[in-house]
């Protein structure tokens, strides 16, 4: 993305962002609530229209991008919609959609990828249960399994750790480290990194619609580094902002 600007309801949320994610990177977008983290990754994918600047997916603007199977998007939460029940397996299997053709029945490869994804997040035994009966952390695992089933090159995750129990967080970290070993690219939004921290190769910190830090993940210092420390205060305040990376383009 270069010079990316987004306004929601005429209020500028992103005010000139330059960001390039290279293959194999594990990028965490950090920042306080309302700093535009989620908006940034949605704009990167073309889900939220830009009011200025441009964004490219593998070199193509979103409207002309055709290789959507290369991207696995994990939304912030599972949307329940009108409440028609649906099983865990149905949701995970739908992650294959970008690789499937109309009228072509589900292939053995589809089925295997779905099984593998369910296995990875530890949901294989519950595949026939309705997703509505799951806790927040379990639903998050189902969403990640859906992206895994599509076997993409790049994972884009919106707050995969928010409201997730410790066990699911550890499972997410383990899954991510496998993906990183496979050379996949990961871009994730997080309020707090938790067990993901050692995996992150680059951190992008947003503040007031600008990038205020871009580089190695800022390490928590002092009391924040103690295990079990509860991170409840806004982040942007204590992150070492590095003015060199400021790139106001507007």
């Amino acid at each position, binding site marked *: 993305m270069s010079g990316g600007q987004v306004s929601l309801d005429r209020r500028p949320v992103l005010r000139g962002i330059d960001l390039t994610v290279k293959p194999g990177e594990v990028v965490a977008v950090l920042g306080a609530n309302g700093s535009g983290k989620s908006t940034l990754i949605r704009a990167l994918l073309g889900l939220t229209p830009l009011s200025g600047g441009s964004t490219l997916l593998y070199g193509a603007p979103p409207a002309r991008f055709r290789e959507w199977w290369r991207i696995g998007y994990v939304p912030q939460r599972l949307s329940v*919609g009108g409440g*028609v*029940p649906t*099983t865990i*397996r*149905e949701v995970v299997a739908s992650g294959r*959609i970008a690789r499937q053709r109309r009228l072509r029945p589900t292939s053995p490869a589809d089925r295997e990828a779905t099984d593998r994804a369910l296995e990875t997040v530890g949901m294989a035994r519950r595949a026939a249960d*309705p997703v509505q*009966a799951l806790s927040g952390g379990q639903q998050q695992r189902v969403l990640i399994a859906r992206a895994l089933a*599509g076997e993409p090159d790049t994972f884009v995750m919106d707050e995969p750790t928010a409201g997730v129990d410790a066990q699911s967080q550890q499972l997410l970290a383990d899954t991510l480290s496998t993906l990183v070993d496979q050379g996949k690219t990961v871009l994730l939004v997080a309020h707090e990194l938790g067990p993901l921290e050692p995996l992150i190769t680059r951190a992008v910190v947003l503040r007031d619609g600008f990038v205020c830090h871009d580089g190695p993940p800022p390490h928590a210092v002092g009391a924040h580094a103690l295990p079990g420390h509860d991170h409840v205060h806004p982040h942007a305040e204590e992150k070492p902002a590095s003015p060199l990376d400021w790139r106001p383009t507007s």
Partner: protein
Amino acid sequence: MIDLLQFDFMQRALIAALLVGLAAPAIGTFIVQRRLALLGDGIGHVALTGVALGFLTGTAPVLTAVAVSVLGAVAIELVHARGRTSGDVALALLFYGGIAGGVLLISLAPGGSNATLMSYLFGSISSVSTQDVWVIGLLAAAVLGMVAFFGRELYVLCQDEEVARASGLPVRFLSLLIAVTAALTVVIAMRVVGLLLVSALMVVPVATSQQLTRGFRSTMALSMLFGMISTVGGLTSSFYIEVPPGAIIVIVALAGFVLALGLGRFVRRSRPQESSP
């Protein structure tokens, strides 16, 4: 049941009822999941203008109803996609316009009156002609074909529109497809239960089956079964106890919902407790 099949009009009515019972809940499952349960009602209101237009211009009301309700459905979908807060008000405006337009146009038609519209508002399945059965059959095949062809994509869309977009699905086209398919369903069901009750066949069987099922596919299959039971069951009982078929079909469907509500509660309680691992 045998004596009822001796009448030609009853045979035609039963075929029409069966087709409607099958097609309406199939598209209805997607509509309910997309939180558009009232879409059918909106299209039904607009279709009334189409029916009146048919009488006014001397063309078959079914054809004009198809044309106008498809246009109306597209308009509703555009309003839904565009607006956020003013959406339901805009929809309401369209509903009123549909009814008022229908009543106005029918009064201009030679020999037309509100009584002419009654059979469309409340259905008149016993007067279905052979030609009507063919039209209903074709439209029902079109609806079921669309669900079979685009089902997987529609599932992703109805689950989460953003994920659908991030999977490269043609979101705008699929949304319009749902609206147009709903419009076709409304026209098919118009002769069976009437425009005012059309939506019931798209929504009630789905609401009934989701009390009992755990998956999307099974919900759709079961709702199609419930749909057929309601339309055929309602039609049969109307033959014996002389009540309007449209009304009794919907009452049968609603009775099924109440039963399923109780049964679903019982089934869930007797299931092994879903504990978190």
